[in-house]
């Protein structure tokens, strides 16, 4: 292969940094909630007075089933309106009515029930999502290819979604969430249906994304948090029980608490006595 041929290959080169990249951020936290309350149905307050500030990094959202994790993530994805309190995403208040288009363009979201169109190919589906997320038309093919490669589905990109296994569908879900290079990435139970090897690769992807993105991963698997997350948020009955590093969570637990790993023991210690863990550590 000659160098001339390769260097002559046309690339649409743009400057490495754009004005948006070097503009100073006007906010301290990517996600900032104060006294946030979100109602589900007529009566139940699924998020009940939450104060939470999240910056760049991978944040694991742990909590028992029914703790309100999904409701919180939906509120952060701006598809549920908070009943009370304030919620700021990327410095913009998203509490009230309005379409929040500018903020939504910078959010990636994988819902717990990831619904898709069976007749679409992987590429068609991710392209469709990129269009819905207002990725500039000229950038869509490259953005889709990059997202699909990052989740390791490049070989299967032109297969129909109905031919994919559960784990692969989940990876398509992750691909559509990152196709717009979001600043806030919300993943609700992303590891469900992934086999152990895929789970390892997913954790690597999370660590990579966490370098410049505020990633919030909800999970009920404590071991997901141990490896991939820089920060753990424990959430129970609509309230924040603990926020700190995985090591700090370990230090909460003692040998008398239930669990197979130190992290699990710390987690179950918090849930036994929610008052004990509140505040900073």
């Amino acid at each position: 292969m000659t160098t001339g041929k390769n260097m002559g290959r046309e690339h649409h080169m743009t400057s490495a940094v754009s004005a948006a990249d070097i503009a100073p951020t006007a906010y301290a936290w990517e996600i900032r909630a104060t006294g946030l309350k979100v109602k589900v149905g007529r009566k139940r307050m699924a998020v009940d007075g939450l104060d939470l500030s999240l910056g760049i990094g991978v944040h694991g959202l742990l909590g028992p089933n029914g703790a309100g994790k999904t409701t919180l993530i939906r509120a952060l994805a701006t598809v549920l309106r908070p009943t009370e309190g304030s919620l700021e995403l990327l410095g913009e208040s998203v509490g009230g009515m309005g379409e929040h288009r500018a903020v939504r363009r910078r959010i990636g979201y994988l819902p717990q029930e990831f619904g898709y169109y069976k007749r679409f190919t992987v590429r068609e589906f991710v392209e469709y999502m990129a269009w819905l997320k207002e990725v500039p038309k000229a950038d869509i093919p490259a953005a889709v290819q990059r997202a699909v490669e990052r989740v390791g589905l490049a070989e299967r990109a032109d297969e129909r979604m109905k031919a994919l296994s559960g784990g692969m569908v989940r990876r398509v879900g992750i691909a559509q969430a990152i196709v717009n290079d979001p600043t806030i990435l919300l993943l609700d139970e992303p590891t469900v249906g992934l086999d152990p090897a895929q789970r390892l690769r997913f954790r690597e992807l999370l660590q990579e994304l966490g370098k410049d993105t505020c990633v919030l991963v909800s999970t009920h698997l404590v071991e997901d948090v141990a490896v991939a997350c820089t920060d753990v948020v424990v959430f129970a009955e609509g309230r924040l029980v603990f926020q700190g590093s995985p090591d700090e969570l370990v230090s909460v637990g003692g040998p008398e608490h239930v669990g197979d790993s130190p992290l699990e023991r710390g987690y179950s210690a918090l849930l036994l006595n929610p008052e004990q863990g509140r505040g900073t550590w």
Partner: protein
Amino acid sequence: MSVEHASKRIIEGYVRGGVDLSADEVWAVEAHLEMCRVCRDRLSAAVGAGVPAVASLVDTVWSGLEPQLAVTATMPRRRRRSAPLSRWMTPTMVPWLAMVVGVTLLALLLDLSGTGSGEVSLVLLLAPVLPVLGVAASWSRGLDPAYELTASVPRAGLYLVLRRTASVLAVVVPLLLVGGWVTGVMVAQWLLPCLAFTSTTLALGGVVGVTRAAVVLATVWAVLVVAPTLATSRTAFALQTGGLPAWGLILALGVGVVIARRGAYTVLGTHQ
């Protein structure tokens, strides 16, 4: 447009490491090379001919990259156009629209054969609620598996609502136009109720969810207009020309409410 290319002297100086070029020349030639394919070709030719050290370095990098590139599936260069239709309607809407078309054709057939309901045109009777069904299908939680994803995107909201509604009307209205022309019903007589019902569905949908609104309105229509008409075999007042101003008013109200409450279409509640 004429573009000035870098001179041979500058390219060759750059190849030799830029030592005999001034700083602003190096800066300018780099900026130019980023955008100019012709000069990149000249640069690579100059490198290949004059500086074996750089050429061998580039070759080493390539031989390191090639095994990695070989295992990565490349993006197909030319593909079929990817479903531009999906930008107008979700795949799940298609069977519903087909059903609406079927119902319209059936009503038309009954009208023409005269076995319908005597004096009353079935097409006229069904016209207002047919698009409502299609609109409901485009926003139904049960029918659209990707409803939650769709609700979370920046393009969601009034824009997408109107886009999908427009695509429903684009299918239904021409069909009704043909039906109306064949059965001799005045266009405004069915078009106004049809648009009024659609806008009211969207307006009410912003509060209780589009699908629920469609069900409520279709029921109201069936009870208040269709049932009495079929029972008495006389066109209800609502569908006679005297009712047209009222329909116009409802349409205007519906559109007004939709615009005023456009923020409501971005939350999950609309998909119920």
